[in-house]
């Protein structure tokens, strides 16, 4: 079961580096999704390890929250794109003008 946790931590690290390195807001968002997915993998693996379903329930709730978060986040990205014709995170450094 350790290898599942190691894989999950590798995916989480890649997602974190992506959030720090990438400039396109949509790709940054995808990397956040990757981190959430890595956490889900760890939760499901631990559920199997301990032989109860609480981890799967937690992963389920994470998925629901991720769905809500994606809807709002993409709507915000669209609004910013409409205002300044760019999806780069650098252009939105000021939340005004």
């Amino acid at each position, binding site marked *: *079961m*350790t*290898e*599942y*946790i*190691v*894989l999950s*931590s*590798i*995916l*989480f*690290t*890649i*997602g974190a*580096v*992506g959030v*720090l*390195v*990438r*400039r*396109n807001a*949509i*790709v940054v*968002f*995808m*990397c956040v*999704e*990757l981190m959430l*997915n890595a956490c*889900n993998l760890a939760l*499901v693996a631990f*559920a*199997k*390890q301990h*032989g109860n*379903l*609480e981890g799967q*329930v937690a992963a*389920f*709730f994470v*998925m*629901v*929250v991720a*769905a*809500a*978060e*994606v*809807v*709002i986040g*993409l*709507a*915000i*990205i*669209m*609004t910013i*794109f409409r205002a300044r014709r*760019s*999806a*780069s995170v*650098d252009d939105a450094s000021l939340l005004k003008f």
Partner: protein
Amino acid sequence: MITFWVLAPIMVLAALGMLFARKAVHAALLLAVVMISLAVLYAALEAPFLFAVQIIVYTGAILMLFLFVLMLVGVDASDSVVETIKGQRPLAIFTGLLLGIILVLGLSQLSLGASANLDAANDPGNVPALANIIFSRYVLAFEITSSLLITAAVGAMVLAHRERLTPKATQADLAAKRMRDFADKGTHPGPLPAPGVYARHNAVDTPALLPDGTAAESSVSRVLAARGTVRSAPAMAEDIEELKRQLGVEPSGPARPASAEPVDDLADRPADPSRTDDPDSNHGGGAQS
């Protein structure tokens, strides 16, 4: 275990590809690879419900949402490579590597022992067992989740809504504007001419020919003209000559009488007693067969 060792390298490579993909669409497709592989891993970890939810919610809904937004923003909007904060990128990579090494080294020293069996927990089946937990102990969290989803839906509508600044033009306004343009500038008030639709191919990109043989530029969509994909009328004429050569009809000869029409390319058609038109009009249809 075989599933894991097959899928883990694929997932790590796809996730690394997300870091290095120049175009956002490629990153989205690589993310799809990671998510589908994760779904298979869930199935291997005895979580069939999460397997289905991962496919339906993540790859089905969330990733499609990403792709839709990418289409709206512009597919070829690639990442800028300009560093806005000096030394941020190397520092980020260094920190990430540090985090990864610490996590991997620390976790690989764990010995979790033999994993328990989920058979007892999955007693009436995975989905009923999950439902028992969600609707008893986690029912409050479940209700709060539903309010969160409602809030997200309303929030997305509010964010995407745009207030109309000018009143919407009605049919009557458009008609009046067309007549005003005709009076002021002499613009033709009727509809634009249709493009030249010939038998050879689907010809919205071919301008219609005016009676004097020149092309009617206004008959082709402005989008096609801006992309430079409009076919010129002379090219079309050459096509017709080429077609005639292939059919064995003498180039630019006069229309032959109906009795001389070769029937071999029409023989395979079902007999149509209602067809009484001139066989010459079948030239285009015969060219396609």
